[in-house]
């Protein structure tokens, strides 16, 4: 049996896992190689679960592992290993080449029969492209223009998105291979066998946890066109992340964290509808944020939370309250992000009184009008790491549309 190629790939794969942060050593690679003797490597699932069982040690590893697995084992060069064609023993290094969109292995002595099959492959590629462009259209389409079918499709796409919020270092230490602090307990224990000479050191370092995400979502009349999709979005957020607190506001603030914890989206939205009494009414953003600050801030936004406010900024309340409470909120959280569905329109300018009062205290001002904007939000969230944005009250208006307004020549 020639395991050379497979073993080499396993080592490369383990290296990739180490780079993305999993604690994987040569020991586990050897274990996996041994395990594959008992597993039908032709079945992708079996291989996946075997590798996952050996390489992942905590739940947080799983998402990283999945990503790395997809990336590594689906890249063309390595595909033959996972093709359900040959048992591992029949693997032999040979020169192969691949057509662009298929992972199929095509030997040099391509027969006429296979050439006949070629158009079929092409058609398949075409289908893929069609769905791809349909997806692309849906991604770019404004939520308010969705038909019922599109909402259903978008719901599915939302459900497939994975979310990750940046982490923070906790004060708890965990043992690691190479770290920042000496783990004295393990040092003493490990070096007993050397008679008290400290030959081997043991390390620990801060455990990292994802930050808490707090979502404050405007459900007043002016937001009505977006409320449905945004609720779906918030539901996927709270089911995909560990610590999410969700509040809705119009004229008053309602906490819907518990209602959203229901797995089924329609059940959850039903519960939310029952709990909220001010759908589609007026907005008092300042008073709502004040209520949040007074009643909830210290309870739900501990230890460097990320706060998302989803609103178009049409405010009928007092502007002074809004700006004072936004300042308090920004000072108490790690990052304050304002999502505005109207920001998707190319000529939109945040000129409402409310927004002008609030924006100086906002760290990021982002659009939330289509799926693509949610994806870019996902990227921002996952990049919230240690560095807090400089807050000197010099909020820069985003380039979207605004530069045009400021620059009369264009």
């Amino acid at each position: 049996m020639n395991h050379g190629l497979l073993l080499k790939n396993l080592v490369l794969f383990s290296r990739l896992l180490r780079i993305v942060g999993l604690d994987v050593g040569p020991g586990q690679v050897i274990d996996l190689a041994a395990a594959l003797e008992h597993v039908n490597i032709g079945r992708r699932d079996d291989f996946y679960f075997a590798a996952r069982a050996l390489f992942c040690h905590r739940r947080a590893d799983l998402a990283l592992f999945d990503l790395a697995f997809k990336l590594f084992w689906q890249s063309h060069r390595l595909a033959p290993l996972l093709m359900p064609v040959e048992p591992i023993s029949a693997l032999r290094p040979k020169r192969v080449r691949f057509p662009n969109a298929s992972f199929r292995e095509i030997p040099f002595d391509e027969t006429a029969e296979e050439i006949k099959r070629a158009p079929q492959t092409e058609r398949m590629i075409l289908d893929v492209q069609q769905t791809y462009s349909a997806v692309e259209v849906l991604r770019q389409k404004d939520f308010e223009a969705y038909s019922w079918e599109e909402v259903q499709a978008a719901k599915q796409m939302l459900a497939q998105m994975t979310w990750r919020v940046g982490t923070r270092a906790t004060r708890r230490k965990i043992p690691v291979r190479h770290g920042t602090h000496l783990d004295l307990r393990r040092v003493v224990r490990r070096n007993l066998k050397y008679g008290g000479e400290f030959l081997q050191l043991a390390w620990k370092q801060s455990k990292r946890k994802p930050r808490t995400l707090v979502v404050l979502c405007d459900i007043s009349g002016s937001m009505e066109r977006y409320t449905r999709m945004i609720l779906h979005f918030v539901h996927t957020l709270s089911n995909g992340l560990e610590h999410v607190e969700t509040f809705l506001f119009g004229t008053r603030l309602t906490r819907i964290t518990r209602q959203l914890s229901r797995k089924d989206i329609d059940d959850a939205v039903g519960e939310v509808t029952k709990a909220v009494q001010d759908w589609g009414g007026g907005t008092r953003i300042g008073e709502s944020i004040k209520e949040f600050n007074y009643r909830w801030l210290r309870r739900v936004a501990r230890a460097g939370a990320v706060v998302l406010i989803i609103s178009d900024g049409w405010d009928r309340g007092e502007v002074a309250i809004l700006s004072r409470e936004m300042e308090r909120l920004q000072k108490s959280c790690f990052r304050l992000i304002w999502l505005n569905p109207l920001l998707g329109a190319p000529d939109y300018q945040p000129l409402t009184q409310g927004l002008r009062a609030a924006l100086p205290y906002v760290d990021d001002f982002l659009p939330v009008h289509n799926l693509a904007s949610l994806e870019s939000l996902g990227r921002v969230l996952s990049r919230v790491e240690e560095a807090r944005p400089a807050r000197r009250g010099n909020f820069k208006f985003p380039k979207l549309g605004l530069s045009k307004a400021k620059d009369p020549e264009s």
Partner: protein
Amino acid sequence: MLQSIDDVIRALEQHQYISDRGLATTIFLGLKLNKPLFLEGEAGVGKTQVAKTLAAILDARLIRLQCYEGLDVNTAVYEWNYSQQMLHIRLMEATGVGREEARREIFSPQFLLKRPLLQAIEDNLPRAPVLLIDEIDRSDEEFEAYLLELLSDWQITIPEIGTLKAAHAPVTVVTSNRTREIHDALKRRCLYHWIDFPNFEKEYRIVLTKVPDAPDRLAQQIVRFVQELRRMELYKMPGVAETLDWSAALVALDQQDLSENVVNETLGALLKYQDDVTKVQGAVARELVERVRKS
């Protein structure tokens, strides 16, 4: 000695803790059923003081564990004294002690540093101590999970030594300021009580008990003023602890009556946020002082 709820109320009062029947009932049941008390409430309503007073009443040792994020077994339960261990290893090396024997010796109780939780279940205590686990909401979920085991079985396992079990379960008080929700599993093992801000009569008695130098009339005005403040929309309500601080401050300034000037100058003893201070200072304070002096 504490045979009824009234006994508890009386005993607490003898030790200068003015309680109400709800709290006394919870304490009484906690002692009878041997269950931990879980006391929640705003800052400064006397949660921690319950444990201190209980220790005084029962004439027991008070063991306090202040919680914070990242609190782990090494600081809450036990730790090995590494520097001593290292020295000892060197010593044994010089005298030529065998490896197995050395291992046994340096992991003996002699090198064990006992942290609060281990101290609380040690079996050489003459009577059950009072264990105060203060501000549990500051700790993280991991520590909460650890407590679950301890609070139900009252035993601690040290791998190198074995399992230690408490001879008498400690009288346990867990407090929380509710800066986050504590997991139901932990609360389920405890008797829960929410300590509210006291009403006028109760707070007045507390001030008279704790600040005996305060003139009657001043004490009344102080308490009325604070009760009025709590009715306002403040970012941080003044607790009983603040009332007592303020009373002591006014007594130190030789005041007989509340006056607008002194109130403005000493508001810092009551209110801890600048927004709240600016809200009350001036017109509001004047009006409150007038109202309080009239009644």
